[in-house]
């Protein structure tokens, strides 16, 4: 199940020095190294909370991803940030 790939990405972002910065600078290159489905890759690139949860990513993990990407906790479902920008 590829949702494991999203969870692994988030765990690595928490623990690997510099990986958050690399994700913000070169998201496509970082995501390429994880076994994500097309929908999951799009949802991560868009920092789309609702889409990630709909795809089966646990809300706890989704929240960690978005917070690490710079989204404030209260803004997770209303922000306009994206890894593409």
């Amino acid at each position, binding site marked *: 199940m590829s949702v494991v790939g999203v969870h692994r990405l988030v765990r690595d972002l928490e623990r690997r020095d510099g990986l958050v910065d690399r994700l913000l600078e070169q998201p496509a290159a970082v995501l390429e190294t994880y076994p994500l489905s097309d929908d999951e890759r799009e949802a991560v690139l868009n920092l789309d909370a609702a889409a990630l949860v709909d795809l089966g990513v646990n809300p706890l993990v989704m929240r960690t991803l978005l917070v690490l990407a710079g989204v404030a906790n*209260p803004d997770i479902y209303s922000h306009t940030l994206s890894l593409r920008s």
Partner: protein
Amino acid sequence: MARLVYAGATSHVSGILRSPDAHPDFSPRLHQGWERMTADLESANPDVVLIIGTDHYETFGLENYPTFCIGAATKHDAWNEHGIPGNTVLGDESVGLSLVGSLLERGFDVSRSLEMPLDHGYMVPIQRVGLDQRRIVPLFVNCNTPPLPSLERCRDLGRALREALTELPDDLTVAVLATGGLSHWVGLPQTGEINEDWDRRVLELISRGDLDALTAMTDDDIAEQAGNGALEIRTWIVAAACAGATGGEVLAQAPMHAWVTGIGIINLEVAA
């Protein structure tokens, strides 16, 4: 036969350590509750503290995700996720493995982890109620990754634990502390909401030892009324059943919006 010398339950949100004085009225009330719990634990002076908690995708991932797991190790490192403070604590490999064996004999096929670092669900209470120099045996309960163990199953695990404690060495004293809850929504649009009525009702039921009413709740109702984080009350049910479910004393309760969590702290009676 070991003796259960203390039982209790508390919320575990990281704000307890990170912003302890977040509310001018509620914070002092809560810290008074934790100080009381700290004093009671100190007075009970347990050799081992069995902490019944969950994990927030720090120790366990979807590659391997247990339903129940006991940490049996000589020490437990802290993940320090998101900068949450905490240092390595002592464990008790022998007690952990003994409990695994005793629970297996009673129909609970718990997993064991011989290397089980701990996240804030354990480390926050450990630090807040003065357990950082004691031997810790963590018992993980899946509270956030469906399918979850039923509330009845958690009650039965607590009852089995109560029996399992009898098979530990004679002179051992054990404390049981559950961590989690109360109402809070994590990573959901309702994040920040707190259902204080629900929190009070759960505390009342626990303080009356009414596990029948608690286990009659459905996870759908809990999640709708009190959030996905409130599903962590299954750890409280395990601890209450382990203590004998004769009642308890609420030490403090408050809707801590600054911590996005309803907080509850309770001492559980230890039945003879």
